């Protein structure tokens, strides 16, 4: 290994890349994570595509076609899955199995471990979103033009939901409960945030706008389907949730398994 001869910053970058590669390998090897996290949203948009292809725009979908609406919301859902849900469950499992403690026994710094996870989650999210946009295009949804806004929204959203995922993993007591807790939080949130159907209730919308999922949906809906750019207000709410998640994660994250 010639790593030792690198200057320190280069060595740290090489270390980070090394870590991302092995996170990717662990992810794709695990049939559960590869299927439920990655394939599920792709299948969902394909089913929606078959159901709604050729439908005209309607006021129910804010003047958009059903598919124009669903491509960004399902894209957002895929990010929730690969960042929030997957990360919370995997970290809770790794902690319970003692794998996290084993990581602490190596010289790998904590920042490299978490940056590696973050970068891995963002990469999975980006691939998923590109696939979903591609399938949308196959069913006649025009490709978006505001790529910078989409890219920034994606990265910020992925990072925020990763932080929330780590926060939830820090609060969960045992790994068996992790999937249930994760879904219990996520399902109602996704539902009232208009992911599966547009919500036309001002009360619900104002509540959901203060929670993390609807702002993410809105911030993707604009550049994907409505030819608008950055939705700064929505991004601000997302970033605030991400910061709150990061704060809980930093204060409450544990490496060691809970005593039996």
């Amino acid at each position, binding site marked *: *290994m010639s*790593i*030792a001869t690198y200057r320190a910053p280069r*060595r740290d970058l*090489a*270390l980070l890349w*090394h*870590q991302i590669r*092995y996170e990717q*390998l*662990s992810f794709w*090897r*695990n049939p559960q994570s590869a299927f439920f996290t990655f394939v599920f949203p792709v299948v969902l948009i394909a089913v929606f595509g078959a159901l709604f292809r050729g439908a005209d725009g309607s006021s129910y979908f804010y003047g958009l076609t059903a598919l124009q609406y669903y491509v960004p919301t399902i894209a957002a859902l895929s990010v929730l899955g690969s960042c929030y849900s997957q990360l919370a469950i995997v970290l809770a499992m790794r902690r319970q*199995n*003692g*794998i996290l*403690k*084993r990581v*602490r*026994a*190596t*010289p*790998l*710094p904590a920042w490299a471990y978490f940056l590696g996870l973050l970068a891995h989650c963002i990469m999975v999210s980006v691939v998923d979103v590109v696939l979903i946009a591609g399938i949308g295009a196959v069913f006649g949804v025009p490709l978006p033009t505001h790529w910078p806004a989409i890219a920034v929204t994606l990265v910020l959203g992925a990072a925020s939901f990763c932080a929330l995922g780590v926060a939830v993993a820090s609060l969960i007591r045992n790994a068996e409960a992790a999937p249930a807790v994760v879904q219990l939080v996520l399902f109602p949130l996704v539902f009232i945030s208009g992911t599966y159907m547009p919500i036309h209730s001002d009360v619900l919308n104002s509540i959901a706008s203060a929670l993390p999922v609807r702002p993410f949906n809105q911030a993707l809906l604009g550049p994907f389907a409505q030819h608008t750019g950055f939705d700064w207000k929505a991004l601000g709410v997302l970033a605030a949730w991400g910061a709150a998640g990061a704060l809980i994660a930093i204060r409450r994250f544990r490496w*060691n*398994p809970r*005593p039996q």
Partner: protein
Amino acid sequence: MRTQLTGVPELAPDGAARAGSPAASAVAVAGLSKCYGTVQAVRGVSFTVGHGEIFALLGPNGAGKTTILEILEGFRTRDAGLVDVLGIDPGDRSQGRALRERIGLVLQDIAVEPYLTVHETIARNAGYYPAPRDVGDVIGLAGLVGQERRKVRNLSGGQKRRLDLALGLIGNPELLFLDEPTTGFDPNARRDAWDIVRGLQGSGTTILLTTHYMDEAQALADRVAVISGGQIVAEGTPSTIGGRDRARARISFALPGGYTTADLPLDAVPASTGPGDGLVAVETAEPTRTLHQLTGWALAHGTVLGQLTVVQPSLEDIYLRLTGHGGPGEPEPTIEGSTR
């Protein structure tokens, strides 16, 4: 080899443990203490481990071995005392990475990512160290040749332990911590593991291990410290610890029919009938002489001493005596189970 026969060590950090300066020893511990709530898990422990030495912390479950190891590894904070590991204070978080680049850890629990292969798992950890061993060499060293491409989840328990050992070695550590390295091994696997440990010592690695197996400490360690109730109750080489080299030999045999212990030709050596087996046991500082008297007496009376044996006290006897079993001693607080 320096031999210490400490009774109850002083809490003050100026005892014999500080005799070696940090540079002279790989590990120096003085007056180390740790409480969990009201339970005093470690009470003023002091010891040093020289470079290239195999040092064993021997003690029953809950004696505080793992707590001491975890403090040395930087996993736990300490309440009091001085600790120096390869010139670094493991309590200093800013030095954590530098310390871990130079030590290897084999923990009690097996914990490995299930979906990677053996080779991938070792290669991943190799990337964490500035100057790792060759992955293929470590696979050979840990006895995992032929398993490289198998997924970790498909390995047997013993193979996972070997993988854990490989992960402890991959960074080419100067100092290796082994926490009960052979618990759950079959006899052959234990011999293999011992050979690996001796081989590592041969290549200059310092090894600090915990064990509750007396034979393991005897087979591997240059020096042993017996821990009981959070204190070192004895320290020395396996052959001299607890005055083992100076202890009396024990001769035991079945008393021939028709005789009592009063008939035996023993000058001032008390004989006792052991419980259970009904054998007569004689403890003597002069086994040659006593044995000659006994066998001479048997031949003269035309009888035999059945099941005749002569034994020096085993490390196990010393251990049981020191850790308060079969002798007076305070009950051991069990602390490890409640804190891990």
